């Protein structure tokens, strides 16, 4: 996927004017926020679990080489194969190689953000293999040839009429005059269409929420059961996983699983939490004959030992974007690449470069809600600030912003000049805005006043008032 992150501002403007998207955002925001709050309130141990979850991930990252080797040895012991890939291109080639050796024509897919990151669908299509997304949300956006707009609710931006229109266009084998009376009818049609694909697929690709060192297992979490059908029915199962998914033991995974569903959808536990360890065993009546893990680094190891290491604790629950005022205003597509919202604002610059993604860490009010709801306690605002510093150091900040920051810095280093200037500005604006107490238009502040009024200062600065009150108090 070609990033449109450099056009974030344009994308955001378009998103604000998109009535369908705004309707979807109004519906989705309270849904996720209320459900999470209720699930967390019902578990007194939630905070203790967060603390333990953070420790587990920090411990694993500090010993990542050891745990990866232990995990890989255990995958091999169970008859599976690990394909170590330094780059996205290596991972695409590894997947294609496995598909070719299996003579695959149809590949079903469970939901995987790593598969979006490496662009596997376009790549397989270009090589004559048909990928079929089976998560309901991923399926509808595949039909519309668009990327996901959210990491756990990829099609939240669509409304019912969009679903119906796309199904009518895609499912031409069904009667054209059929009626969708309720949402259930849409679901039932998808179930029928995709069931045929599950049965026809030669290879199934899933992601992984966790990899477990002690057993060599991969773990997926779904509510639909599509991931399980994807990995159970075809003769080959490919897991796409990145190196930071590792945890040492099943007990460690249990801690993180207690945090994941509650933080994501507000469920106590997802419907299907499935641990896969190698291919079909002797005597088994079902299950794949081959089990492969395509293990991806793609820039993650370079985050170790830096101020961005904490980001590798992320378990992709989406709580940060569900509570972000910026994401809540513009949705996920505006961010222009695979990972939107606060976690994307930190991760995307690592993966596609700060030169292309500089807008994203700036698309934040630093309100801190993302960090406060993050189950892994990732200091997202601090890391966005680190990216802003790097952007400034590398002279990627736009000229206009740079010049104004320079101007501000000049005053900030000269307290007397700063006070004089702010007093003059407060006085002048206070006088000008005396009547209404606000400005509907203001030169140099057009970007602000286009969307809302600017409150007028009351005529004096905080410094002046503080000095006066202190004198009075004495």
């Amino acid at each position, binding site marked *: 996927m070609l990033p449109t992150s450099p056009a974030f501002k344009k994308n955001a403007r378009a998103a604000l004017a998109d009535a369908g998207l705004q309707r979807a955002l109004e519906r989705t925001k309270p849904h996720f926020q209320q459900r999470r709050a209720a699930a967390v309130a019902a578990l007194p141990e939630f905070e203790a679990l967060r603390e333990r979850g953070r420790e587990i991930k920090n411990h694993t990252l500090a010993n990542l080489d050891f745990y990866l080797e*232990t995990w890989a040895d255990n995958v091999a012991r169970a008859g599976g194969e690990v394909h170590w890939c330094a780059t996205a291109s290596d991972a695409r080639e590894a997947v294609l190689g496995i598909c070719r050796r299996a003579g695959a024509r149809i590949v079903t897919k469970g939901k995987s953000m790593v598969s979006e990151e490496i662009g596997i669908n376009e790549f397989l299509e270009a090589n004559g293999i048909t990928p079929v997304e089976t998560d*309901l949300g991923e399926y*509808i956006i595949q039909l519309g040839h668009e990327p996901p707009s959210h990491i756990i609710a990829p099609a939240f931006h669509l409304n019912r009429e969009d679903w119906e229109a796309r199904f009518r266009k895609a499912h031409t084998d069904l009667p054209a005059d059929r009626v969708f009376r309720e949402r259930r009818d849409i679901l039932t049609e998808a179930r029928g269409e995709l069931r045929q694909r599950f049965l026809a697929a030669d290879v199934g690709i899933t992601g992984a929420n966790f990899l477990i060192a002690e057993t060599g297992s991969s773990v997926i979490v779904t*509510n639909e059961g599509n991931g399980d059908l994807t990995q159970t029915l075809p003769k080959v199962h490919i897991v796409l996983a990145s190196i930071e998914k590792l945890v040492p033991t*099943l007990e460690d995974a249990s801690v993180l699983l207690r945090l994941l569903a509650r933080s994501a959808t507000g469920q106590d536990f997802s419907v299907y939490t499935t641990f*896969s360890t190698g291919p079909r065993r002797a005597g088994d009546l*079902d299950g794949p004959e081959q089990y492969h893990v395509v293990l991806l680094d793609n820039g993650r190891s370079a985050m170790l030992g830096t101020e961005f290491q904490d980001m590798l604790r992320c378990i992709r629950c989406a709580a940060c974007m569900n509570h972000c005022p910026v994401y809540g205003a513009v949705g996920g597509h505006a961010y222009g690449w695979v990972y939107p919202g606060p976690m994307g604002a930190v991760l995307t610059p690592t993966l596609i470069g700060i030169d292309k993604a500089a807008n994203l860490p700036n698309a934040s009010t630093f309100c801190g809600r993302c960090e406060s709801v993050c189950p892994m306690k990732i200091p997202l605002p601090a890391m966005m600030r680190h990216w802003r510093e790097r952007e400034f150091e590398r002279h990627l900040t736009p000229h206009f912003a740079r010049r104004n920051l320079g101007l501000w810095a000049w005053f900030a280093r000269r307290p007397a000049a700063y006070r004089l200037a702010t007093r003059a500005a407060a006085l002048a604006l206070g006088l000008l805005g005396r009547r209404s107490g606000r400005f509907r238009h203001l030169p140099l502040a057009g970007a602000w006043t286009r969307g809302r009024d600017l409150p007028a200062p009351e005529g004096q600065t905080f410094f002046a008032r503080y000095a006066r009150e202190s004198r009075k108090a004495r």
Partner: protein
Amino acid sequence: MNPSGDRALVLAAIRRNLGRGPLPADQAALLHARLGAHPRGPIPARSRLPRAGQLALFAANIEKEFGTIVRVADPAAVPEAIADYLAQQNLPSALVMSPHPELAALPWAERPLLRVRTGRAEASDVVSLQHGFAGVAETGTLMLPSAPDRPTTLNLLAETAIVMLRASRVVGAYEEAWDLLRTERRDALTGGFMPRNVMLVTGPSRSADIEQSLELGAHGPRRLHVVLVDDDEAAA
């Protein structure tokens, strides 16, 4: 291409950025010890109950997650309970069942109208019967590990999934279910305890992808019905 790809490259990059070489033997030994001890995290107090309370919590959570549960006094009552359920739901009197000895030993002959096939599930199967390995009261979760006598397709393909579970196999927390697996299973292939597949199932399949409105029966079963056999005297 090297069959395992860039193993050495990826590991070297990780070590370089962590600012060290491979772990010294004494530190690796500590990590091996942690794997061996597999320490537990905080266990939610909600499942720390006497047996009867734990079973009630399990049943309440199954229903909270849109499953259904019926309790029967002994295994001999299971075929009747299933026949009654299928009749109530207006479902055909036919099912596919795991080749598990405990299921095979049930008195199916007493329900001659119920057609029972044994094996893995196929796409045409409407009702399936699985043998439950364990239940977790904390969230009303079933642990269904794969084995020759517990095929995975029986958890997935039919629109109605029925699971028979002994009450003595209901534990409080996930960690206790892992302990059952650790102590009771030995895998011939790996020498470990982990089967090919372990499904933790909490309610029937669902999706909220269409306008965040919850609908049951996305790709997996639309109905999940648990027949709990009360074999646990401590819970009586």
